[in-house]
């Protein structure tokens, strides 16, 4: 298969970026999207052109590093992450547009690489249970019904890629934050800090420049881990609960 690529190139955070055109030739349908880019990059390097920089590591949909907007949608709007997208899903000969995740809270560092440390700072504000090493009781002393544990796991499955933010018109981080808040609010371990956590995480989200949620729910549609927007509703309830407390 062959493709025409339009790729966002930007030398560094300060530079102005622009779309550049490249050819991807002799691509095999079993290749992942990133393997296709690897092939293009090997080619570019041989021609003396700086390869296209993008974040990636695990290449199997779990680390949350890969973060491309493909044809206007984070992770191409397909099942899974960018690294899981396979080339057989594209029409031979088609043109593919590749851009970075864009959001005020995710400034571009170079090409398709963005700075997502804002996500870490939201976690620092309250995305944890304050327990120190060695203080734990026997794990079976905390009984958690299977369905509660499963629901908490549904929320905990978030990989922190930021696709929800990139998909949202308001660049809101609600789905990501809601997933963490809900996971811990569902579990007995998270109760002691329940109100404090949601207040602090929401406050930090605002400081980082994430937008508000106005219920477009584009986030859920692109989430590679199918995190449900019901967690946003849950977080709103948690937030209200914390306000009245």
């Amino acid at each position, binding site marked *: 298969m062959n493709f025409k690529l339009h790729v966002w190139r930007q030398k*560094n955070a300060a530079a102005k970026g622009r779309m550049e055109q490249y050819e991807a030739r002799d691509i*095999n349908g*079993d290749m992942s999207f990133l*393997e296709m880019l*690897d092939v293009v990059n*090997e080619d570019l*390097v*041989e021609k*003396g052109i*700086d*390869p296209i*920089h993008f*974040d*990636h*590591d*695990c*290449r*199997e949909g779990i*680390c*949350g*590093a890969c973060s491309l907007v493909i044809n206007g949608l984070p992770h191409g709007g397909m099942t*899974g992450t960018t690294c*899981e997208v*396979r080339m057989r899903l594209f029409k031979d000969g088609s043109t593919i547009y590749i851009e970075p995740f864009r959001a005020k809270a995710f400034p571009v560092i*170079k090409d398709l*690489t963005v*700075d*997502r*440390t804002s996500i*870490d700072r939201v*976690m*620092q*504000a309250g*995305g*944890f*249970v304050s*327990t*120190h*090493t*060695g203080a*734990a*009781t*026997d*794990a*079976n002393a905390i*009984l*958690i*019904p*299977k369905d509660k*544990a499963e629901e*908490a*796991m549904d929320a*905990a*499955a978030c*990989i*922190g890629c930021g696709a929800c933010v990139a998909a949202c018109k308001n660049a809101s981080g609600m789905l990501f934050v809601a997933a963490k808040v809900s*996971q*811990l609010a569902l579990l007995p*371990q*998270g109760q002691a800090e329940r109100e404090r956590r949601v207040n602090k995480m929401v406050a930090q989200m605002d400081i980082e420049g994430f937008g508000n949620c106005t219920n477009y729910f584009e986030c859920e549609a692109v989430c590679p881990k199918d995190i449900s927007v019901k967690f946003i509703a849950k977080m709103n309830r948690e937030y209200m609960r914390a306000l009245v407390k």
Partner: protein
Amino acid sequence: MKLDSKVPSGPLEQKWQKHQFEMKLVNPANKRKYSAIVVGTGLAGASAAASLAELGYEVKAFCFQDSSRRAHSISAQGGINAAKNYQNDGDSVYRLFYDTIKGGDFRSREANTYRLAEVSNNIIDQCAAQGVPFAREYGGTLANRSFGGAQVSRTFYARGQTGQQLLLGAYSALMRQVGLGKVKMYPRTEMQDVVLIDGHAKGIVVRDMVTGEISSHAADAVVLATGGYGRVFYLSTMGLGCNVTAAYRAYKKGALFANPCFTQIHPTCIPHTGDYQCKLTLMSESLRNDGRIWVPGAKDEQRAPGQIPENERDYYLERKYPSFGNLAPRDISSRSAKEACDDGRGIGPSRYGVYLDFSDAINRLGKDVIKERYGNLFEMYELINDENPYEVPMRIYPASHYTMGGLWVDYNLMSNIPGLHVIGEANFSDHGANRLGASALMQGLADGYFVLPYTIGDYFVREGAKNISTDRPEFREAEEAVTMRIKKLLDVGGKQTPDSFHKRLGQIMWEKAGMARNEKGLKEALQEIPALREEFWNDVNVLGSADEMNMNVERAARVADFLEFAEIFCLDALDREESCGAHFREEYQTEEGEAVRNDKKYAYVAAWEHKGVGQKPELHKEDLQFESVQLATRSYK
């Protein structure tokens, strides 16, 4: 050099407690005077950094990903072991210890392995307290499964994402400490060298991967938690950034590298199909609980799997190992797959693949049960291979997965360089020649939460707080050396990409130092590797400049280290004239093809000391003392 393992005296069961009591404690008021650098924030590094900060030490943590949450540990699927005996099936600390030491083919240090089993239960408690959503039973207690051939159910899990959930637990503890100002976190920062002052590790030199800036950090101790070197084979199940650089640079500064040839090849990965591939995806080992592994009985079989009648199939694991069957340990399963393929009976386009067939299980249990158990994995397989494993058997083949070898450490997890501690997959200590499934997560967290935080305090008190400044000449020299090396890479101005060299190195290693090794192959590899290295330094093409985000520089620098490291790997494999665990020397096998260990000559840890690039490193031996267990022949028949 005399290697002192510092294993405490006394009965095995009491060593750790006794040692904990005998170690010196840092006065609480003094803790903030001590500082530690933790390189790596996987399970080992994140848990260590958070725990050290909780104790009151000043901590700086580093990782090369854009966030500490993305370390390679995140991809672990199957689970984590602990000797809780929640299932009442006869498990105990001693049994977990014994299984681990036997699984490692009696090439690990008894006291370390015992301690690992001993603290395993605390890990589960700790992670549960953090809110890790482990799988539960209806009654609310924790669920377990049997994993990796264990005969008790001691594996705890969170769906197929155990590593992710454990790492996010450790990461949340770490983020809490960052928020409290007790840890300073440096993501996108790659360690380039360790700095020694008066023989002690007192700092590191790093490269900022966004700006290219080279800078130094000083502390009272340095902890390497930088993971394994499985990508020396190029193709592996590991994250693409995994590398040997941190450990190798420490080796060049005098740290001993132990058992580098002990590497695990995982039996159930998606086979290699094309040259474009840079990683092989692991299909969880749990699939072997219900899948049956087979190849055609005849060579060069052309028929589709469904067309091959039952009596023309060879379920080779069931045939050779009737009692363990498809659950035979990883090394044995991997080697058997290779044998079948070398014999011309492999399947798939490359003919290096075997079938993992679920049709019997589907007939017996129904498709729904199989879907409930492995639905995610089946989807993942279909996405990658465009084949539906409910209908067509999966194709799998072994791939490089884990490295038991690593920097030599004593019982305190300190290398032979005082102050330089090594934890997690980066050290060599607990798994011997082969690691059991679900034991790496356990070891990373044991080291980080429950061992290092104690032992490092002892080192601190013995040495006192030094408050070292990075203005010292040792730092200037190291920075200069790092800068020069990067400049040298950029100046080669050759034609071939760093990746193309990595691929070629991987091929040599896979063919000559992979699942089976022999003297002839290893000697050839030892000729080919230096030649490839020379070619690299004459013809590598590293574009761009040093003072920007530059993936060419990052990759080239890592490949350059692999090109040196591969040589000690092969030397180690050549030196060890026996077959043990994952190290299979073809010369040392029984008539049936089983490994022949040589305890008289090789019951030692091989620890290599750097003597210059291209020079033969010096071998130091730590004799393994077994006080409690009897060395037995591993048999899974």
